């Protein structure tokens, strides 16, 4: 396959979009990416520029709505983890975890001990799988100037193969514990259908120990990329747990002082109808757009990382608070290494629980749950009746929460880089969106799509 000029691999550390401008940018132009690649789901970008100002930014979503909240009504509360998993094939565990925690909150049950540990283990698997997919296959090609990881593999075969082995180890956790990698079958309200014996998990510890050096190498590798100097005044939002790096528990906190219980989420966050795009965007009632995901988690929970991981982050050149979304790739690599260690810790001390699940008798109530999906905070709330039938459902996925921030980034980023030739600017703009690892499949059921034919 031949590669056109613009796709030639840049020298290591050189990134597309950093070339000196050849000529002045025209006075008025449009950046349009009709089908955004290397994101999960279907979306496009439209940026209209007049002179030195960005007139309009739209992250357009073509993904058809699927109406999950609507058809969950009337389903059994026990079906929520299986059904909501199908919102997103990339992060089904996140949907399963947020939904079971919401149902357990409604029914007044908490799940602890080894069952809680196994849930964390499952989530480690998803983080590893999803982060490595994003870091190595979807995001790294941007930094090195390749169209895709498969193009990149031609020049860096060893690295791509190692990254695939690391990703596979994450998938192996989900497969052994969950039954299969995509839409695992073993998660239920109250715990699991069946819990593994020690010997079933033993091969996982071996596999993870083998790939741990790959996680370190991946971190070293991405920390050597060059990052455009870029930042905005973000409000970061994530869960925060009293002692752990967050997965499924904790309070919802922000870098501007928010600190509330998950059950209070809807008092502080609203979904708004924004005229320019007619898309629903989440915002903080008090202040506006906010930022969820690895950067937010890391910034708000650096002190919850074990010292070895903090050290690895420092060695990778990260400060304790990272404000440049282009460095999200490095934070993902840090979280990947952490997830490998956390999984190894859980595997090392695992004793099967006495029963695979705790009984969760339904009652007429409402319950909220939140967990940290690879892409950020995922909120679920359900109302159920005394028979356990769902009456009401609300799901706020991470990508919907980031949309306003992504659009703000695009506006600022394009304005600051208008000197770049069009082709590079377009690629860089796509890259700025991929920083958020947007999962449009997830976001869509909260975003009405607007079919608008825009003049090109």
């Amino acid at each position, binding site marked *: 396959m031949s590669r056109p000029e613009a796709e030639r691999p840049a020298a290591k550390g050189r990134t597309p979009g950093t070339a000196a401008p050849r000529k002045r940018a025209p006075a008025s132009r449009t950046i349009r990416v009709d089908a955004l690649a290397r994101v999960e789901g279907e979306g496009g970008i439209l940026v209209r520029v007049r002179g030195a100002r960005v007139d309009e930014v739209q992250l357009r979503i073509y993904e058809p709505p*699927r*109406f999950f909240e609507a058809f969950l009504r009337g389903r059994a509360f026990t079906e929520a983890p299986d059904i909501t998993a199908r919102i997103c094939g990339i992060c089904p565990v996140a949907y399963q975890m947020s939904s079971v925690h919401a149902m357990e909150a409604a029914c007044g049950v908490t799940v602890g001990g080894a069952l809680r540990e196994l849930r964390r283990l499952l989530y480690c698997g998803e983080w590893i799988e999803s982060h490595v997919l994003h870091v190595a296959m979807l995001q790294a090609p941007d930094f090195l100037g390749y*169209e895709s990881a498969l193009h990149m593999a031609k020049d860096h075969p060893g690295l791509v193969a190692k990254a695939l082995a690391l990703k596979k180890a994450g998938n192996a956790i989900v497969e052994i514990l969950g*039954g299969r990698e995509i839409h695992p079958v073993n998660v239920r309200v109250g715990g699991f*259908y069946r819990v593994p014996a020690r010997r079933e998990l033993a091969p996982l510890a071996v596999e993870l120990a083998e790939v741990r050096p790959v996680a370190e190498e991946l971190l070293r590798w991405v920390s050597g990329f060059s990052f455009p100097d870029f930042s905005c005044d973000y409000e970061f939002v994530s869960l925060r747990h009293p002692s752990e790096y967050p997965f499924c528990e904790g309070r919802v906190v922000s870098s501007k002082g928010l600190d509330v219980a998950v059950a209070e989420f809807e008092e502080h966050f609203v979904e708004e*109808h924004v005229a320019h795009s007619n898309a629903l965007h989440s915002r903080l009632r008090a202040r506006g757009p906010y930022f969820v995901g690895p950067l937010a988690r890391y910034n708000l929970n650096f002190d919850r990382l074990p010292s070895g991981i903090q050290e690895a982050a420092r060695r990778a050149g990260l400060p304790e608070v990272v404000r440049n979304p282009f460095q999200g790739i490095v934070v993902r690599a840090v979280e990947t290494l952490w997830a490998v260690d956390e999984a190894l810790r859980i595997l090392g001390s695992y004793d099967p629980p006495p029963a695979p699940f705790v009984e969760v008798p339904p009652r007429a109530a409402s319950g909220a749950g939140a967990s940290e999906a690879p892409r950020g905070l995922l909120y679920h709330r359900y109302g159920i009746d005394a028979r356990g039938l769902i009456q009401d459902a609300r799901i706020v996925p991470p990508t919907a929460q980031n949309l306003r921030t992504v659009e703000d980034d695009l506006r600022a980023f394009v304005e600051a880089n208008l000197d770049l030739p069009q082709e590079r600017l377009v690629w860089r703009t796509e890259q700025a969106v991929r920083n958020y690892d947007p999962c449009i499949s997830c976001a869509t059921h909260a975003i009405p799509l607007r079919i608008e034919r825009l003049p090109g």
Partner: protein
Amino acid sequence: MPRREKPKLAVFKLASCDGCQLSLLDCEDELLAVAGEVEIASFLEASRAVVKGPYDLVLVEGSITTPHDAERIHQVRRAARFLVTIGACATAGGIQALRNSKDVHEFARYVYPSPQYLETLNKSTPIVDHVFVDFELRGCPVSKRQLLEVLSAFLAGRKPVVPTYSVCVECKRRGTPCVMVARGTPCLGPVTQAGCGAICPAYERGCYGCFGPMESPNTASLARTLGDHGVDAPGLVRAFRSFNAGADPFRRESEIHEQT
């Protein structure tokens, strides 16, 4: 190496969760080998490089739920020499076909504050309702093994070997004791097509029908058995009306119990 034209592979997505096409990226051991055998001409989830059609093999994930997609699928068909639909969304309408028995406008009002901006169809339908399909691969999600079988069969110019018997056969082969007999757990295995490897019973739960109806399933007899195991009529409706709600034998069985 002698250069020959590699077959062009394209992947398209309609209403779906991305899970089925992700199965391809999850083939960690085989991915680079597959990439060597075919030209990945369009696979937006993985690459920004898009090569124009026509394509030798097109994989379609997702169901038709918008007027736009109902048109687009004809373009996709025209560009495809061989069109394979992957997953329950594409072969039966997917979980989003739960709208088919309800009022989609009410759904839209429930989820969105400005439902007038939505362009959505009343029903979620499989691709085969719109265009000719060369092969349908079941599952929610599809099995990696079967997906690779489809790719290699295509590369070898033969028909994919994908059994149409029930999950029960896979349970027997795996040596899993029947969850209905041994524990009285309701299970859709007797009427569901094999392919997943009978995962659920191996994890001590009943099959919930990801791969859709097997060839000539006796859903009525299974419904009676499930009833004996304590599943009430609304429970039967829910059991047959999930990820393959739009597949005819499951749809008909669910409608029977809705009336009782």
